[in-house]
């Protein structure tokens, strides 16, 4: 007897290996070759260490590396601390589903759109300065301060926090659902520990293992982000990932080889950072245990929690203002400094899609729909294959899913482009779809796996006992019952596709102009009214997808009480 579903599982495995793992490996391989002097396309054929010498000699390399480490670790650590403090303070007052709805706009808005909004807010001539000038500050001209692109990377960290704190909040809120928080809180307080202390000593040690992987993803992302760093980060020298992107894009092709060496350094930075983080976890665990054994009741954690909550509230407010600011700019006609609102308004930009945003919108929408459909199909086939074999996921299979999220994009995308060009797939829409798929699929898979497995198996046993074939069980029971999580996963995948910057830039050879690539390109110095339109659209598309993911199941299942909850099962 052959194992059921073997053909399906084999097909899915081949697709994932060939479509996702192979390209990443190929990309890394080509990057590795170029880093050691071999890139036949530019006539480099000899194995050498010259690219590395050139890299070290490049101006600003050391500074870039330092900036990357500071902003990456800084943003991740701060985001984790703030999100934890906030959850400790508000837990019990806000449910996971209400929290999810509250956080949806932040999660849906692409990094670049939020970053542009933050830049519009905190720039010397930005909204905040306008709101408090001249009556408070006395400024009659925009001040000469570097509040964006500052040399320390503070604006960059702020931009990352606005996006990563809500992400970690969501992750922590859903992890809290698996921990008996109320009982432990009651037990701890009965022993004389303050609320904040119970949280730190009892709850967090249970929650952290559940959110560890997302924290790694945030760390890897913060260390290697390109679009946010272009918009908000230091510009000369920039962070390492931005520097590498510039070198690759430079007209001087000799820079490609040291850029590839730097891409390997970027990969090593992420691996090293995760290793360092794991070491830090051990240290904190050991120290925390000593602290716990000492038995201090310390009710004094409350002020810290309050401060963290206030800061998170501030960040959320900043995020809302940033998105609102984008909309206001897109509608502004004349807005002289220091007026708090435009002197005159206009729909001119919005009424002229031919100026560029119409095409970018259509392309972004098409790419998003195509990648999401592909990812959803593959994810459902994968999960169905697991069901038919009646087995869970092996560790190595889970690692395959997370791989694209942990390897820095810059480390393999240029190499992937080289490989794609070699097989004649470079510079077009199909190559961009493929490159985006590498990042859309993992998120769709992660979003769908848990609700899929949470579906009561006895429901399917009942269907089977009634004579329903595996296909009928899938189509008539699983998919309808799981409609809500499936659409949520699709909305997440769509949002990821809309947000992709580097894959679109590199695999599209700069010719595939989406809302995101255009917004990032225009953000440096263009007319804010034009940038505003792109950024608003960029934020609005994923949000519309989220809203559809909420509204559609509610409509389809409007007479089904058991399915009107957050999850299908």
């Amino acid at each position: 007897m052959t194992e059921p579903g073997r053909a399906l599982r084999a097909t899915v495995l081949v697709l994932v290996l060939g479509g996702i793992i192979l390209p990443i490996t190929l990309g890394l391989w080509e990057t590795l070759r170029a880093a050691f002097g071999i890139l036949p396309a530019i006539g480099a054929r000899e194995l050498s260490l010259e690219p590395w010498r050139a890299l070290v000699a490049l101006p600003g390399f050391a500074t870039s590396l330092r900036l990357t480490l500071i902003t990456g670790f800084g943003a991740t650590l701060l985001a984790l601390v703030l999100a934890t403090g906030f959850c400790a303070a508000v837990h019990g007052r806000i449910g996971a589903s209400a929290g999810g709805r509250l956080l949806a706009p932040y999660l849906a808005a692409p990094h670049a759109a939020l970053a542009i909004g933050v830049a519009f807010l905190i720039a010397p001539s930005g909204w905040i300065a306008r709101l408090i000038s001249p009556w408070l500050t006395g400024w009659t001209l925009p001040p000469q301060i570097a509040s964006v692109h500052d040399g320390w990377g503070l604006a960059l960290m702020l931009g990352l926090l606005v996006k990563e704190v809500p992400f970690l909040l969501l992750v922590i809120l859903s992890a809290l659902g698996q921990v008996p928080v109320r009982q432990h809180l009651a037990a701890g307080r009965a022993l004389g520990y303050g609320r904040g202390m119970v949280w730190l000593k009892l709850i967090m040690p249970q929650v952290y293992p559940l959110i560890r992987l997302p924290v790694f993803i945030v760390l890897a992302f913060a260390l290697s982000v390109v679009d946010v760093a272009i918009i908000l980060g230091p510009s000369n020298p920039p962070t390492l990932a931005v520097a590498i992107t510039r070198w690759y894009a430079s007209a001087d092709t000799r820079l490609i080889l040291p850029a590839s060496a730097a891409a390997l350094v970027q990969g090593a930075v992420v691996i090293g950072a995760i290793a360092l983080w794991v070491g830090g976890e051990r240290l904190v665990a050991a120290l925390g245990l000593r602290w716990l054994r000492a038995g201090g009741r310390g009710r004094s954690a409350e002020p810290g929690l309050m401060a963290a909550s206030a800061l998170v509230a501030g960040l959320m407010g900043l995020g809302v203002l940033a998105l609102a600011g984008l909309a206001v700019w897109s509608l502004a006609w004349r807005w002289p400094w220091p007026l708090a609102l435009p002197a005159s308004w206009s729909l001119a930009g919005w009424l002229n899609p031919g100026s560029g945003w119409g095409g970018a919108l259509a392309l972004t929408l098409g790419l998003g729909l195509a990648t999401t459909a592909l990812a959803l199909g593959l994810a459902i086939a994968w999960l169905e294959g697991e069901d038919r074999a009646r087995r869970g996921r092996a560790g190595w299979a889970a690692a395959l899913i997370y791989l694209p999220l942990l390897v820095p994009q810059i480390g393999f995308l240029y190499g992937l482009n080289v490989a794609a060009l070699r097989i004649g797939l470079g510079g077009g829409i199909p190559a961009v779809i493929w490159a985006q798929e590498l990042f859309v699929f993992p998120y769709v898979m992660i979003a769908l796996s848990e609700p899929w497995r949470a579906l009561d198996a006895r429901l399917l046993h009942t269907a089977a006992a009634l004579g329903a074939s595996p296909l009928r069980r899938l189509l008539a029971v699983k998919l309808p019952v799981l409609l809500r999580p499936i659409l949520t996963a699709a909305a997440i995948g769509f949002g990821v596709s809309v947000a992709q910057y580097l894959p679109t830039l590199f695999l599209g050879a700069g010719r595939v102009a989406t809302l995101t690539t255009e917004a990032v390109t225009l953000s440096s110095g263009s007319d804010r009214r034009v940038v505003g339109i792109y950024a608003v659209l960029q934020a609005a598309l994923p949000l519309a997808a989220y809203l559809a993911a909420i509204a559609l199941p509610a409509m389809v299942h409007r007479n089904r009480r058991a399915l009107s909850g957050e999850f299908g099962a």
Partner: protein
Amino acid sequence: MSLDLAALTVTLRGSPKPLFAALTLSVPLGAVVTVLGPSGVGKSTLLDAIGGHLAHGFTCTGRVMLNRRDVTGLPAEARRIGILFQDALMFPHLSVGDNLAFGLTRAVRGRKARRAAVEAALEQAGLGGFHDRDPATLSGGQRARAALMRALLARPLALLLDEPFSALDSQLRSEIRGFVFDHIRERGIPALLVTHDLRDARAAGGAVITL
């Protein structure tokens, strides 16, 4: 004609011995045989093995015979062994009537005939006029009766009952028990009941095996 188990065992991978001693029993037509035992001894796993629902990692030895036909190697949907669970497990996205229609055998053809069969079954279960209701709005007893009708409409050759009365309070429990057992006897279907409740076993009236 009966449901027969021949030296059936289930072993979890990595475990040296099976979950329970090899089980041999015969359930005659229309009889309800009870397997009794506290929770956690593998009663539900036994039913999974008979129905073909075993999770990966479990291996099953021995044979399951249905009307002298060996069904051990068949997938669940080909065995024609119906199952009733504790909380009735109506498909939450389908109306009550569509739940029954999902179960109704393909042998009943034609839209009108199928609809009539479903309506008749609803009547029998005291659920006349409930065709378009959301299953989530039914009471526990109504759900249990609807689930039995859904199982019977598939014309099963045997029925597995996995503590189907445990969620019901005591008065409703005896009523639903009577309803289910009457239908089983009337249609001459062999049924295997697993429960930890001795009263269920007595009401079943058939042989009792302790696991």
